[in-house]
């Protein structure tokens, strides 16, 4: 009896199910005194609702059928499996094309930019208030920066 009491105290104190199970297997399972404190299968059955006591709704199958049809609608894929791969492939191509165009658009080749600027940089004349202005160009050594100074003719 003393051993039973100790076991029950430890059972309550132990926080882990593994430890509680160990106590159950070491003592409670084989102890006739502890077994008396547990309901038998027959007693437990008396408390539980059994299959034959349940009230299964008559419209269960129609309700399930409707539920299945609704869930099928929700989960039906937009594309057939064959088309899915085509859509994925096309999507990838579009992403790659967009990526390339963005990359080369935002970060164009430095040399090609310089060349295009050189080709386009051309001053024929500068006019201020519809009169030709005196123009000075300043360039710094070893630099591609060009300063343009235009002065109104008096």
């Amino acid at each position, binding site marked *: 009896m003393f051993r039973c009491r100790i076991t029950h105290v430890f059972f309550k104190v132990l926080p882990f*199910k593994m430890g509680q199970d160990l106590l159950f297997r070491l003592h409670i399972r084989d102890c006739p005194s502890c077994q008396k404190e*547990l309901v038998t299968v027959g*007693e437990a059955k008396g408390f*539980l*609702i059994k299959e034959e006591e*349940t009230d299964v709704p008559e419209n269960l*199958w129609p309700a*399930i059928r409707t539920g*299945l049809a609704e869930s099928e609608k929700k989960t039906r894929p937009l594309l057939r499996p064959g088309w899915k791969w085509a859509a994925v492939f096309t999507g990838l191509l579009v992403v790659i094309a967009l990526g390339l165009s963005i990359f080369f658009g935002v970060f164009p080749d430095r040399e090609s930019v310089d060349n295009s600027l050189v080709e386009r940089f051309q001053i024929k004349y500068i006019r201020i208030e519809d009169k030709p202005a005196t123009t000075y160009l300043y360039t710094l050594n070893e630099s591609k920066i060009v300063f343009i100074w235009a002065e109104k003719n008096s």
Partner: protein
Amino acid sequence: MNDIQLVNSCLQGDVDEFQKIVDKYKGKVMALAMNVLGNQQDAEDACQDTFIHVYRRLDTFDVSRSFRSWMFAILFNLCRDQLRKRQRFIKLFKKAGAESPPPQRSRASDYPSSRCFSMSVLKDLTYKERASLYLWAVEGYTSQESGRVLGCTAATARVHLYKARRKIKAILEKENVSV
């Protein structure tokens, strides 16, 4: 036709064949749901949802396992979700400062009068204890099988069952009732 044959014919796309599975197991599913949830309305919802889930996941069923246990595991998870929802609702209701308790879905007429005492006793157990008790006493499950349904180890299932059996015995002795 055994379960595996029924499952295979369902997997070939015959929804009507699934009706045989429903007819075969609806009583068992309803009984477990009633014992875990404790009221007719919630048990009906869980029962219906279980069969819909089972049909949709038939392709994931491992034929080396028991179909009944697999189905019970789905049901138990749905029941647990429903109980959590109920708990959240009750907490929200209490937070809102409502004086009257939230409306109960279970009615006295849900059970025969002889059932009322049993149901009140079962309410003292946790839902895991109720499930493990049902699986052991009615379905004859071992702790290993119960563990698979409850989603825990056999050791944990054994502890749940032990606690359930002990609690009920204590209530019986206190009330001096014999079943």
